[in-house]
């Protein structure tokens, strides 16, 4: 039999003097109050989001999709449609086309690339499926908006450079400012002021 749990029972069933004194002087309750009281003097761990602070996720975070370019600035997506096939909820639409350069199949790119965020569950299977590393799930997570239409994001928007550089480690709370627009509400981070909470 395990000794871990049993001692607690024994003590309380046979009430000794010590236990009685503990009961009379409310030691059990004072012990708890003491723990909470001690926390008055420790560092605050809460985060003042969205007014002053914002959490920058780690590198592997699975937020809004991003489409990437290679170093020369050419789109990496080759319109292979693998992301569309791998998606369990069928929320990606890819229509491929040939580039205007006339190189034929060697220059296949996506004519339309759309993601329906209303269906997406951010599982990351599309990211695993992409053979060219064009598709990555990014670190954007403020996706609430006032219209359903806004939740369908296309290539033109996703291919823009990321506000948080890819090399940035993340996992920190940074200073931020709240910006209210009529279409969306955004919290702009300032990466220079950082803190860790543990």
């Amino acid at each position, binding site marked *: 039999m395990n000794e871990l*749990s049993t001692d607690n029972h024994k003590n309380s069933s046979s009430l000794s003097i010590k236990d009685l004194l503990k009961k009379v002087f409310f030691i059990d*309750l004072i012990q708890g109050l003491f723990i909470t009281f001690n926390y008055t003097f420790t560092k605050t761990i809460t985060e003042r989001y969205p007014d002053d602070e914002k959490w920058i*996720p780690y590198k592997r975070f699975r937020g809004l999709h991003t489409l990437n370019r290679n170093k020369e600035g050419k789109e990496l997506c080759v319109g292979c449609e693998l992301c569309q096939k791998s998606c369990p909820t069928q929320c990606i639409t890819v229509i491929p086309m040939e580039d205007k350069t006339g190189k034929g199949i060697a220059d296949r790119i996506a004519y339309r690339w759309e993601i329906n965020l209303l269906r997406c569950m951010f599982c990351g299977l599309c990211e695993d499926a992409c053979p060219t590393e064009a598709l990555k799930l990014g670190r954007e997570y403020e996706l609430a908006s006032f219209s359903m239409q806004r939740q369908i994001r296309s290539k033109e928007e996703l291919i823009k450079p990321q506000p948080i550089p890819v090399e940035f480690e993340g996992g920190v709370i940074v200073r931020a400012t709240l910006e209210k627009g009529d279409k969306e509400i955004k919290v702009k981070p300032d990466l220079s002021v950082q803190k860790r909470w543990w």
Partner: protein
Amino acid sequence: MENGNRDLITREVTLNMGPQHPSTHGVMHLILHMQGEKIVKAEPDIGFLHRGMEKIAENLLYSQFVPYTDRLDYLSSMTNNLGYVMAVEKLLNIEVPERGKYIRVITSELSRISSHLLAVGAWGLDLGAITIVLYAFREREMILDLFEMLCGARLTYNYMKIGGVRGDLPPGFIEKCKEFVNIFPKRVDEYEGLLTGNRIWLRRNKGIGVVTAEDAINLGLTGPSLRGSGVNWDIRKDEPYLVYDRFDFKVATGENGDCFDRYIVRVEEMRQAARIIEQALQQIPDGPVNADVPEFVLPPKEDVMTKMESLIHHFKLISHGFKPPKGEVYSSIEAPKGELGFYIISDGSERPFRVKIRAPSFVNLQGIDHMSKGAYFADVVAVISSLDPVFGEVDK
């Protein structure tokens, strides 16, 4: 009730508790037949969160179902992923490399801690001890941070994949995890300081919802609810999977089978899980994390970019999936809430013919009538918390 005073006997009333009651842990609907303040019968009415998981599985490729298992017991997605991928691996007869196994152990033990933290925290909240949930959530946040670093999500991890895990440990993970394991036992002492000896906590939990060992087995309870009654049954010890046989840990058991024992078992399990993680972090070997079986497991991204053969496998696996041999498997693991089993029937096509999920919360929930019979209404709240049902898993 025959033992009460005859004059005081009232008409039996039926009270609906939930599905929006704050202390019913999600969307539980409990129909309570009451005689005054005493419970005559407690009937759980389930199905409010039914999404047809088992049916969804029949329409997806084997690998595509993994993110759906996240949404079963959403408080410990990692173990759900593990249960499913282990069943498929058994069907395909794949062996995961050592490092992959260690990573799986570390993540599922972290998951166990985070699940128990929420169980104990919410339990305190339900019984009026609000402080504990704040402290428990702080440690839970740390684990979620670790998971975010590891797999990019804080709740629905989708980290395990058939034949391994989605990515190796990122740099800095082991150090952070060690830091957490060092802090954690002290924090557990703190929780115990708040609850274990507290007279209100004892009054609300001791002798409440008693279920004997024999009844617990007959009801099919598993996990802390079974061990609280003194039955020493833990799949990690008794039918070791992954590398659990290499670690030194104790299986916590209770004696009386009341709510308090189930609480003690959970607290002790958190301590033991921290010990397992510590040992696993020391023993973890280097090497690949994914099995090298190109017919079933996606090849690594670097190979896809450079080797023609890997690219072909990649295209084929993503667009058509794989065809496992015909057959049936059952594989179960010790999830935080009990035995989580997946029973898969394959007809040789790329989609499962049938997936049956043996969800621990679903089975444990049927103990509620037995535990709350004859108790007061307020005790039902303690009983629900001590069973720790999660409705994603009950309703499937």
